[in-house]
């Protein structure tokens, strides 16, 4: 057998573990329903042209403020644009911002936290004090400072929300690293002369993924609300591009006469965020019950 081959028993055990995870996940109705909702939103976000019934920025002046009908399932807005199709296209914006901003947070916060935890001593102390200071900024305030400098727009919103996630993830990862670095396999790698980054990437990172996956899922929900909030304020997605937040901002102007415009985009946000939060809770219970503390 070559040295790279995985013994038959190990492969079988690994798949058994995955089968066991799927079995336990399928017994959690909240997790299954939330995954189902996320898959629907994901489908809408990827195949917008299939899921949407109209061009989201097409203005139809013969159908201003029309109510739900066969032609416009959720009605139209002040410019006659189809609300349902704009919500479908808004799903793409929401998920894109959610995934990319969490990606930015993980790709910076995770190595940072692992390095601080692994190095320990005064280096850890200094690195974490910097994170504490960033953490002291209310999330929206930090995002706004970054947008104030970088400018408005969806790309800058992703960066701003991504930065907000860094300190929280760094703290979480550092904590997990502190316990993993005392494990025998890490000590063995150290004594064999492996470099710091090799130990961090090969031996520590794979063993602290569970809390990062859980936190990442919960963070996507937060990112979707944050993007919607920034677009609501006019700092995120710019008109006429559809975003759930900017749709609500438009609806606010007609609240007294066309209140129903504010209902559907908000429901889309709540349903999607709820799904990610419940998925995160389910994953936490299955992958890392130590993090529970609130159930």
């Amino acid at each position, binding site marked *: 057998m070559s040295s790279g081959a995985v013994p038959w028993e190990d492969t079988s055990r690994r798949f058994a573990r995955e089968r066991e995870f799927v079995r336990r996940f399928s017994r959690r109705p909240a997790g299954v329903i939330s995954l189902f909702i996320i898959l629907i939103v994901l489908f809408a976000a990827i195949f917008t042209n299939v899921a949407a019934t109209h061009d989201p920025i097409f203005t139809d002046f013969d159908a201003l403020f029309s109510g739900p009908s066969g032609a416009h399932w959720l009605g139209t807005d002040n410019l006659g644009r189809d609300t349902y199709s704009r919500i479908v296209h808004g799903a793409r914006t929401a998920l894109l911002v959610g995934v990319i901003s969490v990606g930015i947070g993980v790709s910076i916060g995770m190595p940072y936290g692992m390095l601080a935890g692994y190095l320990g001593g005064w280096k850890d102390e200094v690195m974490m004090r910097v994170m504490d200071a960033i953490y*002291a*900024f209310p999330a929206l305030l930090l995002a706004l*400072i970054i947008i104030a400098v970088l400018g408005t727009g969806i790309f800058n919103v992703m960066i701003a929300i991504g930065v907000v996630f860094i300190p929280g993830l760094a703290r979480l990862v550092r904590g997990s690293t502190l316990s993993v670095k005392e494990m025998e396999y890490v000590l063995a790698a150290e004594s064999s002369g492996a470099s710091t980054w090799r130990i961090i990437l090969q031996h520590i990172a794979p063993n602290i993924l569970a809390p990062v996956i859980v936190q990442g899922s919960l963070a996507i929900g937060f990112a979707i609300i944050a993007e*919607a909030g920034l677009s609501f304020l006019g700092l995120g997605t710019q008109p006429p591009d559809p975003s759930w937040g900017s749709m609500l901002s438009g609806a*606010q102007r007609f609240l007294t006469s066309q209140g129903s415009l*504010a209902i559907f985009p908000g429901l889309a946000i709540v349903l999607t965020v709820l799904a990610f939060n419940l998925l995160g809770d389910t994953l936490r219970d299955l992958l890392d019950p130590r993090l529970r503390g609130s159930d």
Partner: protein
Amino acid sequence: MTTYIIRRLIATVPVLFLISAITFFTIRLLPGDPALAILGPEADYNLVEALREELGLNRPVVVQYLDWMYHAFQGEFGESRRSGDTVAALVSDRLEVTIQLGILSLIVAVILALPIGLLAGSKPNTPFDYLGTFFAVVGAAIPNFWLALLLILVFAVDLGWFPALGFTSFREDPLENMRGMVLPAIAIGIAQAAVLARQTRASMVEVLQQDYVRTARSKGLRERNVIFRHGFRNAMIPVITILGLQISNIVSGAIIIESVFSLPGIGKLLIDSIFNRELVTVQALALMLALAVAMSNLLVDVSYGYIDPRIRYE
């Protein structure tokens, strides 16, 4: 206790300095020229250079930081280019609104969360618990600005109980002031209540399983006494930590909700300053808000030490 407070104060000092450095350097060092950000990308080169000189941007960045800090310590944050007012004056005019909104939101959160969490936690796996958990899960997923729109729709537009927009000073007309603050405070408070209720429930479930609670019950104490005197008081310890974190969330909430209800507070000033490219004001507000949050976290930590003696002896 004094040693504990002094130790916490000393530990806060470097964080406060780091906050000031982050605020300053984020605006100075991020890609993009502050002078260009103020004047706009199509501004004349000579105008941009003149503004750079006026703002002192041509000096070494560390000198700029020390100069900014020196003035900030004296409460001088510069002037708004648009209105000509000092930033300190702009802030003092608006502080009252944001503080009032923050306090009212916290009251809404606590009034809702504690009974819901207490009931759910003391009767686990009953309809009370399921309802409480439903509130906690859904409440955390509702964006405050959408909730604000729904509240305006129902309670201002349909029922006409509260005003949809605007602000009346408390000194001018206390009743009208409170009417105007009810909906914004609920919009911010619900999400915080959801988090608090979840923590209160979890704490209650855990505390009520402790030996001393079983002893209290076996002594024949009435259930109400067991829950309030032995359960609730001890369950509050972790809840207070969460309450500290809520202050940061309430500031975030105020920034957006003040804009929805057109309340002339710090949050609305911040958003207006971003749109008007008033970076000097943005910088000052960011510093003040972050320092306020850090100081309130310090207060929570200290009160935590009072409530739970184990903390201060660690």
